[in-house]
């Protein structure tokens, strides 16, 4: 795949001004990754593409709301991707999926692979590795797979309250470790 280097902040500013070519630049640069992120959550390729289609419409309509003072454009874009994917699941399509994704399928959980793929020396990786394994997995199952507290508790065989408390503490530990 050809790496396309795009200034996403600039592209969003141009989208806000109605420049459709800038939206296409974001598409060329990010679309494949965006589908990958959505697919980890919705677990189905064609549904992931539907999610990404909606995300591009949102980017187009809301580009003027992006505030560069609040972090990189890429973080803003991927927050929309995960949000849209989770909403798609929680708006009633999740029931369809339960039948399709065996509850015990380890492959359905992307959390493990995500952590391993973080670059060596990455602060997030180092700090995640500092967490106890099941706590780390709980947090990653939420962020990467889009699982709810209840789903994480079910899959890990833990009480709901434990999962909730672990994730909050893990977030604080992560934040402290990353400085």
């Amino acid at each position, binding site marked *: *795949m050809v790496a396309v280097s795009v200034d996403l902040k600039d592209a969003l500013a141009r989208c806000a001004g109605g420049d*459709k070519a800038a939206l296409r630049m974001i598409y060329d640069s990010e679309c494949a990754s965006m*589908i990958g992120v959505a697919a980890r959550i919705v677990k189905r390729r064609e549904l*992931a593409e539907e999610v990404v289609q909606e995300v591009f*419409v949102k980017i187009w309509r809301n580009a003027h709301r992006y505030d560069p003072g*609040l972090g*990189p454009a890429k973080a*803003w874009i991927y927050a929309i991707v995960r949000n849209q994917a989770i909403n798609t699941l929680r708006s009633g399509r999740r029931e369809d999926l339960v039948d399709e994704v065996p509850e015990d399928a380890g492959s359905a959980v992307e959390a493990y692979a995500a952590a391993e793929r973080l670059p060596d020396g990455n602060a997030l990786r180092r700090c995640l590795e500092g967490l106890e394994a099941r706590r780390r997995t709980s947090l990653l199952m939420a962020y990467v797979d889009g699982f709810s507290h209840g789903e994480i508790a079910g899959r890990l065989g833990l009480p709901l309250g434990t999962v909730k408390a672990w994730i909050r503490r893990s977030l604080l530990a992560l934040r402290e470790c990353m400085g």
Partner: protein
Amino acid sequence: MTDDLIATAGEYVAGLMSPEEQEAFERRIATDGEARRAVADWRTRLLALDETATQLTPSEGLWPAIEAAVGAARPEPAAEPGWFARIWQDVSALRLATLAGAAAALVMAVLLVAQPFGAGGARPAVVAVLNAPNTGEAGAIVEAFADGRIRVVPLRAIPVPEGRVLQVWTLWDRQVGPRSVGLMERAQARDYATSGMPRPANQQLYEITLEPAGGSPTGRPTGPILYVGRGATPL
């Protein structure tokens, strides 16, 4: 930044909140810059995880579908009946809002017939019910008159923190972008005189955002949307 805020913002970014918790936290974000920064901080810190996703080549139909969806939003709002529905789907969990808005609009239409607003009984060209993006609760009514006058009537108390102000916007053409109607220091009915805007049209967007005191420094909405809705021509 307190531990509670750090953990709560993390839960929000990880998508772990119930719809009710999410709505409450988004209200907090709307009025609390520190909460907004806490969210942005987590998004930035965790972005590397998104970058680990396997790249999946889009199918050939994806870009044309996006272009069609986006293109449909470009022409004159009134010319595109599908736009209304799509906008609502656009904002999360808004299915009920459409119904609530429609019901409220109906109530307003009845009220308008019974008791016309404005000098000399002038009727608004367009009426909009503005709903909260997440709960769909109706927050304000907008009446836009053909002479450029716009009346905004809040339907509930809208908290305005120190150093912030409510700002009313309208959007009739994406190419032009959102235009400020005016500021509202606190939630109370207000009339605004506007000029340089076309006659209010069916489907025209109105929204109220929370902005820094004095209004958005950029001339475009920078703060969170508190209430948003589209205009309809009263019967």
